[in-house]
């Protein structure tokens, strides 16, 4: 097994001394009180990715986003002037939800020239201005110019549409993302328009699920089926590179690529289709990679796993990428979104390579999803009964340690600012 060099301090964790090495608490993932704090301190302050510009291909294209943890639904729209804007999805007349179909809590998308409320027919243009009121003369002192849709800060980075629910964001999106993330500029995200979108309600706190996707320590144990039975060794897995930048995190894997291993390391369906666990064996050339890709200069490089605070993960597999979003719905549940994004297949063979990647993704994501319900259940018991407070977290799990550290820091910072004002 390859041994990757660690920083001079002797470990990745000690390279970032503010993290400490003590056992950590997961009470932040079971406490209803902490969940209430996260609403204000994180989800109403941080930039949140709600989608991609390709979901808004034309002037008038829109989609809605339910953000339960921030108590809101948003409508994101491509304006006639070409600008992308976000608004609270609510009519200013008597508060009806503006854009929805059949089920008000379900997300929707489409194309329109204006927004029309289903209730009394008020209409808004795509910049949110109120431009029609039925029987306007019946109202008292109605200032139409001051009765537009409630706007939400909206910015785009590399085609990813972000919103910020704060009245005045403390940072621009670029400042918030920081250099580790924005150095991915130039990666051809815009070409990867062939998408599979998966969604599932999961019985675990949003952070516990993210934890399972930001360490590989669990892989040999929970996912031994990633290789066929005869070649399972029980050996551990060591990641090649870890990096922190502000609230964001990166882990890179390295080592021999799956398809360069002897054939017995692959399942028959992988050998037939030349695709599998890590996607197509030959994904399209992306040209000169951006400086932010593989910043640890790992060779041979495997995957870059970027954790964008608070609830986004982007996994770059060279010529395609996976993206996860974790939307809290209660202290013990969240809605998981998983997207596989490829350059559009031009042949049947390429389409089937993508299909195999999507199917195998679901097999293993379900393993995590199933198990995390067990984690949530036991952690609730641990803190309800005051059995155990701290849990040991190793150097391969440094991103888990950092994530909970950052969440706590954001909550403390918000409390301090609230107390001062």
């Amino acid at each position, binding site marked *: 097994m390859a041994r990757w060099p660690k920083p001079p301090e002797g470990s990745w964790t000690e390279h970032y001394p503010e993290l400490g090495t003590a056992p950590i608490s997961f009470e932040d993932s079971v406490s209803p009180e902490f969940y209430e704090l996260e609403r204000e301190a994180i989800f109403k302050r941080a930039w949140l990715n709600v989608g991609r510009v390709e979901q808004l291909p034309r002037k008038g294209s829109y989609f809605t986003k339910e953000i339960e943890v921030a108590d809101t639904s948003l409508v994101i729209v491509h304006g006639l002037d070409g600008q992308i804007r976000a608004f609270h999805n609510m009519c200013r007349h008597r508060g009806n939800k503006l854009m929805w179909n059949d089920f008000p809590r379900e997300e929707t998308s489409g194309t329109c020239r204006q927004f029309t409320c289903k209730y009394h027919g008020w209409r808004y243009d795509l910049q949110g201005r109120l431009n029609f009121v039925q029987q306007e003369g019946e109202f008292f002192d109605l200032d139409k110019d001051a009765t537009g849709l409630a706007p939400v800060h909206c910015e785009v980075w590399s085609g990813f549409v972000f919103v910020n629910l704060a009245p005045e964001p403390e940072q621009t999106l670029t400042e918030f993302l920081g250099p580790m993330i924005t150095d991915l500029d130039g990666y051809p995200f815009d070409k990867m328009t062939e998408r599979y*979108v998966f969604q599932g309600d999961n019985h675990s706190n949003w952070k516990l699920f993210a934890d399972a996707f930001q360490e590989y320590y669990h892989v040999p144990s929970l996912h031994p089926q990633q290789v066929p039975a005869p070649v399972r060794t029980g050996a551990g897995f060591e990641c090649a590179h870890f990096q922190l930048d502000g609230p964001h995190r990166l882990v890179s894997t390295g080592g021999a690529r799956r398809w360069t291993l002897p054939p017995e390391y692959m399942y028959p369906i992988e050998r037939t289709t030349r695709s599998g666990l890590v996607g197509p064996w030959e994904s399209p050339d992306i040209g000169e990679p951006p400086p932010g890709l593989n910043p640890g200069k790992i060779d041979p490089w495997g995957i870059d796993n970027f954790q964008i605070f608070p609830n986004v993960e982007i996994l770059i597999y060279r010529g395609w990428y996976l993206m996860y979003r974790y939307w809290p719905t209660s202290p013990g549940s969240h809605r998981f979104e998983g997207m596989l994004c490829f350059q559009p297949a031009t042949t049947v063979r390429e389409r089937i390579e993508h299909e195999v990647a999507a199917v195998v993704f679901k097999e293993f994501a379900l393993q995590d999803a199933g198990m995390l319900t067990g984690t949530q259940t036991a952690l609730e018991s641990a803190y309800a009964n005051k059995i155990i407070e701290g849990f040991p977290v190793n150097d391969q799990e440094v991103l888990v340690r950092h994530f909970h550290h950052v969440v706590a820091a954001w909550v403390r910072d918000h409390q301090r600012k609230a107390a001062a004002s």
Partner: protein
Amino acid sequence: MTALLPAAFAGLEPFAAAWCLPTEAERYAKRLATPMSDIQAFYDAATPRAEAALAHCDAYPLDDLPEDVLHLMHLLYSLVAISFCVEAWSQQRVPDTGAAALDCLIEPVP
């Protein structure tokens, strides 16, 4: 009955009506609802023909597949969808996922 698949794949015709399914949701539901013995029979029949089926479909443009070729491609998708049941899990469901689900909301067509 009219054949669903190209003549060269007549041997897979007994599986076509059940497994030529165009969406992930239909294929996954079929996987969960089918006894392992039937999944194994489909796997055993289709796996040795998968290379040839892939080559047959790949001879046509992706955006203009004749109906029988499209059926064959959907049959290949189903083989992919059930392969882990046979090769890894020895059951239809992913083990220990009683409380978990993951629905495919958007997928490429075809």
